[in-house]
């Protein structure tokens, strides 16, 4: 189980990216973070992945505090980030260097089959399309069987058809080991298709605003009634998150004061 406790991040230049994020994500739960740009979604994932250090607060996985990149946390980035000098098999097995060659090979081939790229293991990344490359990246993250998997808008650069098929591949892999998934997306339908819970965030600084549970049965049908209802709720929350906040009276006072100077 992933637990975030009062997580804040202020960058060295004073930009406050995240303020007081507290969140629990259960084992096997899929959580989607949605929100406008600048709401710190990617920063939050980078904190959990251990690529950045939080200014305050703590992250724990099954009670263990996360201080840096951790074996039980995997991530799929916005771009495939494949290593161009490794074959597809080499990329998928990048995190399996400690395994015996046969075991590694078996896991690689299995993961490639799951993402629909059986027979592509000896190809170079440059020979693959964007969607195929992203599938390799997903396989690379899953193959180490992480307890927590982070997805940072991994499908945002792909067309709608490719995206839908990748959703299926993702759910297929997820069903095998049932990791906890935290995904960032700006696509509300994607969030509802995949997630059990959707967290709407408010920008500048990034804060959690509203959490919406999606209880529809899987596989989810975009045309079902409940789907539309959930979508409307999320869109409504998103609208509110982007509206300017009623500014605090203290700030007004400061404005007035500046007149005197």
């Amino acid at each position, binding site marked *: 189980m992933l637990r975030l406790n009062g997580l804040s991040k202020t960058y060295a230049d004073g930009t406050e990216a995240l303020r007081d994020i507290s969140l629990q994500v259960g084992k096997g739960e899929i959580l989607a973070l949605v929100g406008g740009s600048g709401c710190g979604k990617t920063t939050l994932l980078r904190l959990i*992945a251990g690529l950045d250090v939080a200014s305050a607060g703590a992250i724990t996985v099954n009670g263990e505090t996360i201080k840096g990149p951790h074996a039980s946390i995997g991530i799929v*980035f916005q771009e495939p*980030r494949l290593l161009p000098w490794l074959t597809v098999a080499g990329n998928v097995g990048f995190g399996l260097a400690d395994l015996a060659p046969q075991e590694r090979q078996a896991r690689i081939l299995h993961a490639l089959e799951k993402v629909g790229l059986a027979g592509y293991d000896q190809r170079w990344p440059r020979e693959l399309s964007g969607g195929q490359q992203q599938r390799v990246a997903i396989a690379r993250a899953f193959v180490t069987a992480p307890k927590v998997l982070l997805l940072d808008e991994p499908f945002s650069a792909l067309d709608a058809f490719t995206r839908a098929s990748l959703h299926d591949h993702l759910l297929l892999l997820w069903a095998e080991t049932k990791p906890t998934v935290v995904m960032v997306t700006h696509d509300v339908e994607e969030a509802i298709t995949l997630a059990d819970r959707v967290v709407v965030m408010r920008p500048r600084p990034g804060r959690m605003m509203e959490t919406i549970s999606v209880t529809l049965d899987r596989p989810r049908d975009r045309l079902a009634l409940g789907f539309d209802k959930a979508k409307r709720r999320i869109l409504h929350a998103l609208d509110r998150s982007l509206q300017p906040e009623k500014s605090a009276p203290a700030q007004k006072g400061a404005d007035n004061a500046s007149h005197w100077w």
Partner: protein
Amino acid sequence: MKGSRPSRSFALAGVLLPLLLAVLWEAAIRSGLAVGRLMPPPSTIGATLWELAKSGELQLHCLTTLGRVLAGFALGALLGTIIGAGAGALVVVRRLIDPTLQALRAVPSIAWVPLFILWMGIFETSKVALIAVGVFFPVYLGVAGAIEGIDRKLIEVGQVFRLNRWAMIHRVMLPAVLPAWIISLRSGLGLGFMFVVAAEFMGASEGLGFLLVDGQQMGKPAQILAAIITFAVLGKLADGVLVMISKPLLVWQDTARGAL
């Protein structure tokens, strides 16, 4: 297969121009339109090359020059790689040595000759040192620039998989700088061939540079041209060998094929 066709015919096209010029010049001299005393016809140059080869002189000069280039190249490339890697990876090292090296780089190669002769004598050591200086700078610049320019995003992939320092270097950083390193080696080798002439001008009894000087002093333009042609062939061959060695290392590259 279709793709290799045009490139092969283009390679032949490259031979056409020098061939045409050679034939025209030969014809001009045979027909008495030109004398060709200072610019001997191709047949004379060919004969000179043949004479030199028959006596074994050409092979001796080639081997001597190649040996100097290789020794200087090995030394310069090694130092350039090590110091370039240091400057690329560590800001402190870069701040300390890069300005000095950039200033030294601006010094013309010939300017080192008197100093190197004073320091190391007129024999092999000073020659190899001069060539090494020529090879060092492009390799240094190439390696330092490549390391500085490694994609942070790929480094993060290594971090996510918790590579230790050594694994990060040999699984991510080395392959990432390999293409730029090989290109810097190639330009280093090219400069090595330029510097070997400067080195052999400063007093050698063997080597293609000696053939050049000897041809000038003895008034044998055919010998000068023969040496120049040999230089061109040797340089191209050496570069070809380097490309051939590096090719299997770079099959993954997503670049315009053949442009390298």
